[in-house]
């Protein structure tokens, strides 16, 4: 009697869950903090056009997005870096096939206080500053002041991108690391606030966060190249050396609702939203 009741219960619960899954009209999007504003802007516009569908966007960092995609707690992962081999292997183990879609570009601005006289730096100088080899502003033409290095936490795709493309200058065999004296702040906004108040500080984040309280440094690939301001034009033309693609990742080729949303982000309207949120469109 009891057994029968239990089996009935299980069958009916299973039925309900299947029903719920098939009748589902919501998407969970998780990942990169850099992309949260963009994701939300997309979701708002999309839901305006499709009122019966619901899209939830949360941040947490690119790594968080991949963890959720792998554990199937989100449908789309936003990421400001490529997926790592380790993560692909783990996903395969759990039966998830990460599928990459490039949706926008982002220029990484290196920022200092407007009171800081330094205006331009090369990638090489940046690498030496952030790895702790240059410790005083006077070594790069500034005042005699100790450099305060601000970085994002390790859960940030921006942190990983900056390490691989500036500190290690795209060399996969390089072992360069952020100096352990770097202050690790938990958001781009925290870095922006500290830079605004501290003439000795230097930090980096997506160029959408630069306001008139910070000064974006002009960056050159090497000593022989010209120094370039981070703006949309220079990122599109590829002149600005620290820019990166932004991705959405889905489990396998997008289908159904997820496909509809991904197509929307790549549409003309979706790419206009990219420009409005201070990122760079790919089309």
């Amino acid at each position: 009697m009891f057994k029968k009741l239990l089996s009935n219960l299980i069958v009916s619960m299973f039925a309900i869950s299947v029903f719920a899954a098939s009748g589902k009209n919501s998407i969970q999007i998780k990942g990169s903090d850099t992309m949260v504003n963009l994701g939300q802007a997309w979701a708002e516009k999309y839901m305006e056009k499709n009122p019966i569908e619901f899209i939830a966007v949360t941040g947490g960092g690119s790594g968080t997005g991949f963890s959720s995609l792998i554990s199937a707690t989100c449908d789309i992962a936003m990421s400001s870096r490529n997926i790592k081999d380790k993560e692909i292997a783990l996903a395969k183990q759990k039966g998830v096939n990460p599928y990459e879609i490039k949706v926008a570009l982002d220029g990484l601005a290196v920022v200092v206080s407007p009171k800081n006289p330094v205006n331009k730096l090369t990638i090489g100088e940046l690498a030496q500053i952030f790895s702790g080899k240059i410790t005083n502003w006077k070594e790069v033409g500034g005042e005699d002041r100790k450099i305060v290095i601000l970085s994002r936490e390790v859960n940030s795709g921006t942190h990983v991108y900056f390490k691989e493309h500036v500190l290690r200058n795209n060399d996969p065999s390089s072992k360069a690391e952020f100096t352990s004296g770097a202050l690790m702040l938990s958001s781009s906004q925290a870095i922006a606030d500290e830079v605004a108040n501290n003439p000795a500080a230097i930090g980096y984040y997506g160029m959408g966060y630069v306001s008139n309280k910070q000064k974006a440094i002009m960056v050159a690939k090497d000593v022989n190249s010209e120094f370039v301001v981070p703006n949309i034009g220079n990122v599109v033309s590829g002149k600005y050396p620290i820019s990166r693609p932004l991705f959405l990742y889905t489990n396998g080729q997008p289908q159904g609702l997820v496909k509809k949303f991904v197509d929307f982000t790549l549409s003309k309207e979706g790419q206009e939203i990219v420009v409005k949120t201070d990122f760079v469109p790919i089309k």
Partner: protein
Amino acid sequence: MHKLKEFIIEKLILICGLTSIIFVLLIFFFLLKSGLALFKTINIGAFLAGKNWYPISEPGEFGILPLILGSLLVTLGATTISVPVGVACAVFISEIAPVKLKEILKAGIELLAAIPSVVLGFIGIVTLVPWVKTIFKLPTGLTALSGSIMLAFMAMPTIVSIAEDALYSVPKSYKEGAFALGATRWQMIYRVMLPAASSGILAAVMLGIGRVIGETMAVMMITGNSAVIPKSILEPVRTLTATIAAEMGEAVVGSEHYFALFAVGIVLFIISFTINVTADLFLHKKR
């Protein structure tokens, strides 16, 4: 019938009592299971005494010595500030303050305990951090000292209320005896009340320390989080708790980094367990 009812209620209460212990045990076993997995690949000595924390590099470095020292430094700073102030406050409330003021002070301290730590952290960022930077002429105000001051505020309610309880439970006859022998008020407090309540006050201090070492949000916001071995309290530090909170989101489930964070959790658990047991010993000594 009555007996049955009695029996059922008794057992229900017993189960409720046991659940808390079961939860603690379950949490501990979960921590152990996930944390010890790290030591299959990483030497425990390199973990505890290693000076570099680069968890996402290939291969990762998992040395938590800077984190342990960071936690201890912030805790030490907070204790140095909050213990004298907290104990003095407790003495004032229980021995000196007139009844009305006493009620106001007690309510105020309870209110202090009710402020969420993220709010204190935020207040710290906008007020304390710039002050510390200008007063000590530092390159940045995100330092262990800022964290210590903010945490002292958080430990204060615990210390004051428990120390006040301890002073309150000193028999009245002690006090009367001291006065009868011609002691002044200060002599009575200093020579009679404080020694008589000492075990309770020590317990208050230990519980305050326990509160500080486990605190996460505020320290993460204002200590700068750089994983270097601190040379002075005016430098940024990274604490054990902030490391777990900041990195758990990124750690891929089942990776070395993930296990390392649980191992950090074990270290933290051991530290706060020791502190709580010590506090308990002091409390029981009193009885």
